[in-house]
């Protein structure tokens, strides 16, 4: 249940972000990370962004994204 997924904010309408979640466009509430802006990487849990991530850390820390990067390089 504590699963949280890294995603990139594509657009922001007040506190509701549209994030790219591995290709899917999903709405996430940014009330818990009010400083989040378009282009930021965030962790999304239960419909809320719970932290802003450094892009380099995202690629280093989440195997799924590393694997997607590697697939894109092929």
């Amino acid at each position, binding site marked *: 249940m504590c699963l949280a997924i890294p995603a990139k904010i594509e657009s922001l309408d007040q506190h509701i972000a549209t994030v790219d979640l591995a290709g899917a466009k999903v709405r996430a509430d940014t009330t*818990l990370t009010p400083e989040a802006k378009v282009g930021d990487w965030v*962790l999304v849990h*239960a*419909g809320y962004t719970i932290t802003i991530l*450094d892009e380099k850390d995202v690629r280093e*820390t989440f195997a799924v994204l590393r694997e997607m990067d590697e697939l894109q390089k092929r």
Partner: protein
Amino acid sequence: MNRIAEIRKKIDAYWDTLLSSGRDDVRIMEICGTHTVSISRSGLRATFPKGLKLISGPGCPVCVTGQSYVDKAVYLARQPDVIIATYGDMVRVPGATGSLEAVRGEGGKVEVVYSAHQAVDLARRCEDKQVVFLAIGFETTAPATALAIQKADREGVENFSALLSHKLVIPAMRALLNDKDIRIDGFLCPGHVSVITGWRVYEPIVNEFARPCVVAGFDDEQILKGICEILRQLAEQSPAACCVYPAVSETGNLHAQEVIHETFDVIDTYWRGIGIIPASGLGLKERFSRFDADKRFNLPVFEEHDPPGCRCGEVISGKCIPPECPLFGTICTPREPIGPCMVSSEGSCAAYYKYDRH
């Protein structure tokens, strides 16, 4: 040498140091259910030195929720004017008189939501019904419930309420360390609980019990890094709270902590397998108490009980591993689960059944 191989080399070196100091048995508890699933899925257990044991802790919210809570939810779901809104994991947990899934089959209204605020939206759409949100989960999930309650309060959605069973991880760690029947040498601390709390919250545990507390993320490399750091601390006899997961800061998400603080009081609460732990749960503050489903509905008293023969309680508290339960894989399977640890996708029994059965 790739990064994983480098970490493994370090693990072997610290293990050798521990062996040469006469220590050949180390028990590390992963508290988070998501860690349990990652560890099982990756097959890591089989690759560790014999004597290095990873044991699952009380980190699956559905599993630690008392049976009386499930029975209350099922009772409410059977009331004709009630809609239950719940995270998906709760739907199949068997209660004394059936599961929410069974009630849905009887015509009861049980809606799965992925976020608490969807339950408030549902209540607004269904004004002639009472919508009860099943608010379970740890520090990671509690802010979403808090914001939903605040939204209902602000917007006057009076047909919304929450059946609360939110829990706090650190009091459970302390309860396990105080239990003489369980030996834990170090904790792999939950990554996403710690996003909210920050990693320094584990310092009092380290100071009181001298056990390493290391926060890690969820892929293989993160878990290996966390285990490596725990072994280093044990080998060098220098227990500390620290973090190898870049998503987690020292102090955590202060906004999330604030909404928790605004909405909830810390209360004593019941954990399956452990019992009542003082100051380990969240109850609504007085100003929000009209959204408390326990108070809104005239609920009968439900007793705590476990399904006969089920050892979920011992699995949750690290006293046994799933294959040691006589029901595991025989009459208790993911298709027909007896206990919650086999129901939840994050339950230890489900993870062992799927990945670690042999």
